[in-house]
């Protein structure tokens, strides 16, 4: 399965005040807060972690059909940087999701997969025109699952 999440950093700046008292404690575990503390750019780390949690939650939600709001339950590993992409994982109650995150000055985009081998299959769609929906989940004409994320100026559509 696949899940993605894009963040428009300029919009996030106006929508959220992550420095607000209590904000980080509600959504980030101790080890994630350490990653934020040690990051060169705190804000980019906050939103990178958030986009990874969101992308992993999308897979969880699709596989279980359970909806919940428990960001602490989805814990991000540290990321490794290679060839312009940050790789990591997100763990939810022992289940591991693998993430690849692309960070530009204006946006953060994470793609999560449940099977690491699926990274090589990922492709991006330009628009929604060829998509249909099954049980609320968009899919391609060849019945491959699609994940759509939209925030501010950005929309990213990915499939396997």
């Amino acid at each position, binding site marked *: 399965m696949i899940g993605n999440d894009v963040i428009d950093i300029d919009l996030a700046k106006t929508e*959220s005040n992550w420095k*607000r008292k*209590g904000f980080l404690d*509600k959504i980030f575990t101790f080890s994630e807060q350490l990653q934020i503390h040690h990051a060169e750019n705190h804000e980019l780390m906050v939103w990178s972690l958030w986009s990874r949690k969101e992308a992993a939650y999308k897979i969880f939600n699709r596989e279980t059909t359970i909806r*919940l*709001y428990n960001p602490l*339950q989805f814990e991000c590993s540290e990321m490794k940087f290679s060839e312009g992409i940050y790789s990591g994982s997100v763990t939810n109650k022992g289940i591991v999701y693998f993430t690849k995150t692309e960070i530009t000055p204006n946006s953060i985009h994470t793609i999560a997969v449940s099977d690491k081998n699926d990274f090589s299959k990922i492709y991006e769609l330009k628009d929604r025109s060829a998509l249909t929906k099954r049980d609320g989940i968009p899919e391609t004409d060849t019945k491959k699952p699609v994940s759509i994320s939209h925030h501010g100026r950005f929309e990213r559509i990915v499939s396997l």
Partner: protein
Amino acid sequence: MNREETIEKLKGIVKPYIKNDEAFQNLTEDTDFIKDLQINSANLVDIILDVEEVFGIEIDNQSMEKMLNIKAALEIIETKTAGK
């Protein structure tokens, strides 16, 4: 505080974060924060922090997990304020 008063207070908290005015005008207990009001998931944290401040309660992780719609929020507020 009765349920109508709690809803009014909750609506005041939620209002700055909504992206769908029509759903907000027609708000019921079944209204979903994300699906109907189209609130950004990161702003749900703000709503939870605002609810804690306004009602003087603490929303633990277990309660927060269910805070997806007005009804769940009301139930959490009522349970926590009753215990005060």
